[in-house]
């Protein structure tokens, strides 16, 4: 049995009170609930405050470049389908710099979980607007207020029929741990968009701001109803619904690749007989 201490204790470079602490707590709980030991999964990230998460948990990890966590993570999973893959990423990282990868990952449907630490601001680079910053919000680099419409990752993911879309809140670790566990148990690409207060640079979307608005989806909510999910996903204002918003069961991308049926790619030896057969085709 895995114990929570197995995931280690680390000093972080996060500001006291940052929402990232709640997220890490929930990640530990979700892993523990599934009895996944540190060597039994891979934790991948890009760059940003959120992306430092894998450094603060004992695990296999790959901390790559800004916006590029998803390509790395999908390839890790394709190379070894025995390994659960978890990604921690900021809203700038996955929805901005890596936006194209996000869309492609939703479409590809590799079995993995993306935890988007969505603080609606760039944290690490000190408070510039991110793709999810609300219209009108003033920052040092947007002194006239943000003119653009915010990106709604949940709505986009539902619109694309992403196979699992949930939203949760860093201030409610129980709910979040439950969503992460559901996402990891789901077969296919799972997005958990996590509302994450940035106490240093986002003075608008605070713990209080989110708490006032967040409502859990009712027990009888049907996440497989796409049109209802679209309407739910569109809500981000006075009311912000939390929970499993949309889910569609379909085979993950891995099942589409017969080469993967033989186990991890690292294990496959070169088949020289096959190679010689191929060479004969060039005669």
């Amino acid at each position, binding site marked *: 049995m895995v114990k929570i201490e197995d995931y280690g204790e680390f000093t972080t470079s996060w500001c006291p009170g940052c929402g990232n602490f709640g997220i890490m707590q929930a990640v530990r709980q979700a892993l523990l609930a599934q009895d996944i030991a540190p*060597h039994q999964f891979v934790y991948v990230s890009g760059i940003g405050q959120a992306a430092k998460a894998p450094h603060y948990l004992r695990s296999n990890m790959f901390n*790559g470049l800004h916006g590029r966590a998803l390509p790395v993570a999908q390839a890790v999973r394709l190379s070894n389908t*025995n*390994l659960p893959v978890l990604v921690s990423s900021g809203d700038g990282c996955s929805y901005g710099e890596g936006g194209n990868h996000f869309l492609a990952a939703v479409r590809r449907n590799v079995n993995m979980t993306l935890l988007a630490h969505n603080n609606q601001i760039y944290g690490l680079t000190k408070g510039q607007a991110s793709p999810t910053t609300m219209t009108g919000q003033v920052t040092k680099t947007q002194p006239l207020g943000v003119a653009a419409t915010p990106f709604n990752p949940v709505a986009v993911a539902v619109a694309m029929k992403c196979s699992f879309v949930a939203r949760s809140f860093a201030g409610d670790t129980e709910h979040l741990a439950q969503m992460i566990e559901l996402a990891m148990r789901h077969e296919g690409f799972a997005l958990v968009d996590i509302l994450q207060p940035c106490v240093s640079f986002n003075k608008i979307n605070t713990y209080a701001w989110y708490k006032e608005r967040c409502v859990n989806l009712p027990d009888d909510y049907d996440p497989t109803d796409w049109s209802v999910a679209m309407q739910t996903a569109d809500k981000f204002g006075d009311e912000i619904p939390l929970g499993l918003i949309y889910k569609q069961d379909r085979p993950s991308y891995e099942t589409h690749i017969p*080469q993967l049926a033989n186990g991890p790619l690292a294990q496959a030896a070169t088949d020289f007989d096959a190679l010689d057969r191929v060479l004969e085709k060039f*005669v």
Partner: protein
Amino acid sequence: MPEKTVNIMIGGAAGQGLATVGQLLTKSLIRSGYHVVVRQDYMSRVRGGHNTYIIRASVDEIYAPREAMDFLVALNQETVDLHLNELGDGGLIICDEALDSKGRPGLSISFKDLAPKPIFQNVAALGLLASLLGLDRDVPAKLLTDTFTKKGEAIVKQNHEVLDAAYAWVAEQNAGIEPLAPVPAPVKRLMMGGNEAIALGAMAAGVKFCSFYPMTPATSVAQNLITHGRELGVVVEQVEDEIAAMNMAIGASYAGARSLVPTSGGGFALMTEGVSLAAVAETPLVCVVAMRPGPATGLPTRTEQADLNLVLYAGHGEYPRAIFAPGTVEEAFRLAHRAFDQAERYQSPVFVLSDQFLADSFRSVEPFDTRSLPAPASPLKEWAGEGPYERYAVTDSGVSPRVIPGFSETLVVGDSHEHTPDGHITEDIEMRIEQKQKRLRKGCGLWEDVVAPSYIGPESPDVLLVSWGSTKGAADEAAMDLRADGVQAASLHFSQVWPLKLDQFAAKFDAAKKIVVVEGNATGQFAALLKLAGAQYTGLVLKYDGRPFTPEYIVTALHKSGALEA
């Protein structure tokens, strides 16, 4: 006297099937025992335009395309208009009777009579050429059987009928064309292009993962891996962009799959961020850059050797790398294989620098003995050493034991930041210096492993032609031509262009009166590197019109520049 060598240009519009005629004829020549060099020239369009497929075949070994054509096979009028002047003395034009051959001698054919339907004109053209060259009918006939059996017996039969009609027509003509001299003892050879050889070399090295975004002329590397990938257990993913391609390959490599990324300059420009990641994360990675002329979209389907600097300096920060530049199809195979070994051995990005000319150039090659190749270095599945496992342990060689995650309790940590030996972010001055020096020390190993340049010619030549990559054949033959003319000429070819190790070639430079660097770009990028390495050259022959070098081009340029004057 039968001819020992023939030079054939087949020209037509894209979509007319000239590549099919060309490939079938090439294979028939190779199966008949001839040596072959193919050059393909095509425009960036799917239908129409003007393309050529040029086959040079010989009883003797040959290395490069030549200029004067013996036959011009014109599938449309444009071919006649554009290429008539490329026919050599006594050269003949072969075309449909409906085309205007402008008074040049040749054969005018009624393709309508030979082929029942236009789709069979390819086979008619194949039959005409094969019989004119004196190839035994059974050779193209067997090839057609091999090619079309999967489409059914009826199709094979129809193809054979067209082939026979073409052979019969030629026999009737009594065209007075000398056939090719027979090959004394035909040897089994393969017909293979540069990109095919790279894909096969990668497969022989155990490539398991390839991510790519399509870009000419690199796409066919991925295509070849896709075609044979299922049989060989290679996963190939066409991804959303080059950035994803590079990062995916790194992810796969971290997880233990040997990874390849094929691209061209424009795509590679986007990947450079990831090259830097592979370097700091110390992840093995093989990148094939098939060059085409830039800047930007440039001449999308033509050839050039102008991305050497891009690859040499790609990625921010400092780190060692190796760059291979195959000069032949055989080298493409061997160096692709070697690149995987070096990438794993030094846990670094390694590059294979090719170009459109080599990518699309079919050659006759001796079958490869795949089993005699040394197995590439491999990572560990578990840490059995002393103390806790450190992914970035500081070592004398700079290479740390590489474990792959998921096979044991060993935790494997990869990081893009400067890191501690166990892979975690650090700002510590000492650690930074230690880790950076450790990574740079891998360069010493790479330096010990450099493939020496190959030299052909007399000991103390009057002129030494220095080439790299695909220019090898033209430079070697130019030197041969010069020697036949009484000039003491030699050639030196670099199939690894970085690192450069002066002591491997300094003596050759010292012994030559003149040293002329021949390369396919406008600024002499490799020549500048040679200078950096401490080697002095005296002249340059450059070409940047998007077309490959020929021996004639080099010799003419040498005459013009006065490099051949004492």
